[in-house]
């Protein structure tokens, strides 16, 4: 098992920086996700770790070995793609055995290891099948078994669940995580799906326009986003721009005529800020209760266990989103009705306003 360290890794395609100055460390046995929208550079980063893409600058270490210039066939990484990339001309067994046979592992040992791998991913009965006879979920398991069979130093997963349907995705997600824990293998996972990243990872790195915006545990990323982009991209909620004001011990953000209370511990210096009110930070008050703010329900979305609603609050430039158990909220929010709301500072993230959100960068003149 090996830790992965990226040191100021950069990659330019022509004049465009796909990845710029990314430094991070994936600890031994850790499940680390790179999360970001498409085009943010996460896949390019993973491809550089795999050796399939040459860094323009920076270095890559596996443990203490500098592998920056090691060709991919000598890096000993397990690679799983979104498209499965199962060799269509070989049976399941031959696919899983491929890397071992390349390594000239004795055939008896190959057979033992392949059987073991297929057992682990739950495909023991399908070894003789050709890939054309398998479903998407099964193909992805073959790809995973094939990657793990060579006992790689690190496992690299590039959106491995994106081609699966919703239900299967949750199933395979749990399976990958279980396997990763059991084998204790250092894993770099690339995804644009925040739910996937939040639920599986030990830590997450959020990428945006080629740069790493924030690295942290899932809860930290969600509760204390470092940038406006992270606040918007991870989790849902109402993102507003305002001015932070303090009176004594309480900090509030003034947005138009509305004031959002924020936790003092999180609050930056007074001045322009962005603020993100998470749905769980919006409490629905009883009709009889005093205080709070009135608003008109504009939209209700029923999603089984939970219920989401968007409320127009006078003075706020955006609709305020609230969510709760569909049992609790049943009958209390209806489109067109007036409700009373209060904002809980525990469900509010805040950060200093940024000059402007960086757009995908073109390389500067000197680069």
């Amino acid at each position, binding site marked *: 098992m090996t830790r992965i360290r990226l040191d100021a890794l950069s990659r330019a395609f022509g004049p465009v920086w796909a990845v710029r100055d990314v430094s991070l460390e994936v600890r031994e046995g850790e499940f680390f996700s790179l999360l970001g929208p498409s085009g943010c550079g996460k896949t390019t980063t993973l491809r550089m770790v795999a050796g399939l893409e040459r860094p323009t600058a920076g270095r890559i270490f596996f443990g203490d070995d500098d592998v920056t210039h090691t060709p991919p066939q000598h890096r*000993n990484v*397990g690679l799983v793609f979104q498209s499965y990339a199962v*060799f269509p001309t070989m049976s399941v067994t031959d696919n899983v055995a491929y890397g071992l046979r*390349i390594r000239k592992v004795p055939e008896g040992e190959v057979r033992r290891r392949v059987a073991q791998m297929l057992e682990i991913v739950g495909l023991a009965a399908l070894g003789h099948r050709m890939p054309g006879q398998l479903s998407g979920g099964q193909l992805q398991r073959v790809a995973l078994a094939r990657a793990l069979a060579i006992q790689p130093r690190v496992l690299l997963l590039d959106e491995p669940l994106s081609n699966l349907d919703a239900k299967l995705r949750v199933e395979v997600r749990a399976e990958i995580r279980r396997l990763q824990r059991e084998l204790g293998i250092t894993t770099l996972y690339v995804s644009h799906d925040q739910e996937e990243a939040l639920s599986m990872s030990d830590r997450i790195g959020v990428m945006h326009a080629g740069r790493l915006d924030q690295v942290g545990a899932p809860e930290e990323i969600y509760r204390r986003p470092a940038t406006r982009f992270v606040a918007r991209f991870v989790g849902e909620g109402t993102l507003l721009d305002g001015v932070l004001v303090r009176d004594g011990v309480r900090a509030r953000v003034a947005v138009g005529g509305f004031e959002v209370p924020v936790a003092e511990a999180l609050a930056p210096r007074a001045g322009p800020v962005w603020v993100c009110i998470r749905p769980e930070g919006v409490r629905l008050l009883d009709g009889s209760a005093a205080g709070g703010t009135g608003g008109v329900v504009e939209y209700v979305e029923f999603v089984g266990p939970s219920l989401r609603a968007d409320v127009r609050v006078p003075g706020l430039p955006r609709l305020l989103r609230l969510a709760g158990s569909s049992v609790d909220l049943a009958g209390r929010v209806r489109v067109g009705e007036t409700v009373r709301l209060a904002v809980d500072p525990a469900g509010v993230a805040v950060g200093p306003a940024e000059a402007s959100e960086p757009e995908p960068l073109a390389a500067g003149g000197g680069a």
Partner: protein
Amino acid sequence: MRAEPVVVERTRAWGPPAGPTLDPLRVLEVLTGAFLVAFLIVPVGAIVADSAALIARGGLWEFPDFVGYLMRLTRNSLVVASIVTVLCVAVSLPLAVLLGRVLPAQRLLPVALTLPLLAPPFVYAFATIILFGRVGIVTQLLAPLGLRMPEIYGLPGIVVTHVLHLIPLAYLTIAAGLRTVPKAIEECAISLGSTPMQVLVRIVLPYISSYVYMASLLVFLASFGDVGAPLLVGGQYLVLPTEAFTRFTSFIADRRVPVLLSSWIVAISVVILIVVRALMRRTAIMHTFATETYGYTQPSWRVAGAAFCWLVAAVLFVPYLVIFVSSLATVWGPDLLPKGYTLRHYQALWRSVEPLRNSLVVSAAATPVAVVLAVVIGRLMRAGGRLGAALDYVTLLPFVISGVVLGIGLVRVYAPLDALSPVVPLISGPALLVVAMVSRRVCYPVRVLNAAYTRIDRSLEESSLSLGASPATTFWKITLPQLAPAVVAAFLITFIEVVKELGATLIVYRPGWVTLPVQIYAYALEGNLGRAGAVSMVLLGIVAAGTLAVGLLGRRTRREAAA
């Protein structure tokens, strides 16, 4: 106050228009079917039936050792086609891999490598003579080194000509296969520890095997069915199509032998087609065109690869150069270079423009017919079912069998009916030549339009029908406009293929209807290489212009699709 009731003005309900009693599409389909039956199925069927009857009557009992003669010819034909196939694939496979994976930035090479497809094979044959003949350039260059060029007339001549001419066909097919391999497949194999060579051999080659079989099939059948090159450089090495041709056109016209040879060619070609198609189906992978393909960055591969590709391109280009020089030479040989240069071969062409005119007239007449047939056939094939499958095989037939066979079949059926020609003008004279060209080359526009039909969204036509348009109106207003670019491409491609056709023309043409290929063949046969070169340059010019137009059209269509 009482509210005024809302008055909905009810107009007369317009039912869908009553359909015409005679669907024009149906008429076209019947005409197309009649054409295919009359000029493809009946001629080929007739020679097969003749042969069956001949064998039933005891065969060619007076012909000494006919079986031995047939086996000798068959062996010769199969030997030529096999050697040519192996050599072509052996050269094309590395070419395709290098250009597809190692030298992806090369723009000029892929074009240079397809140049030989412009020329008909017999043009390459006479370049072979100039290069390797008894006083050929290479022969003379080797002589001072004490190396004697082996006699070129015979197996070596045919093989050299066919290999030079057919490498692009194999290359293009295999290159298309390589474009279907997704990048991720090769990346996974690499990261599992394989060397680039191991990836190519263990992963890529099996992945594209159906394309390699396809390339082999195309090359094999093209070589097996060709008549031009063996006639010019085959010497005493007799192959099936040349024997069928010479015996059919000789003075002692015993038509039983060429008819039997022709059906034998049909039988072998069809068997090979069926076997290879089965092989292809077994190895085919559900191909999706990969958006990106892998690139190998080994520096040594790049240098050696570029050298290899340029060498092949140069070798493939030499015949053109030779033909061009010969068209300007006063006398060429026995010296290394021509004694002098002149334009008189071209001036001679100017004095007798009939072959050029004939070629253009025949092609201009045959091309629209073939394209209209293809539009109708494509529509029927899209509907699928048994008829679609049958049409697939019927239109493939003339592509698979030698042009000579089709020509013999047509003459066999329609020459005896010559008396009817005032009533049915299609069956004799230049009209039959046009018919032969359509039958022989209709497979090209059919393939082009087939691909275009599959890209059309059926729901557009279904919408039109549900709005009350008749099938004919729907076809005219909805389907045909979408086919337009493909129709134009099919036009040009068909024209190019028709203008090059020699095999069927040699059998069917009448005096006074000499075409460019026939004229080149005649000049080359009598050793008048200057004239042959000049005519070839004219033919190449026509084909090159057509090909350029196809390329420009394709680029424009792609740009519009991207916009």
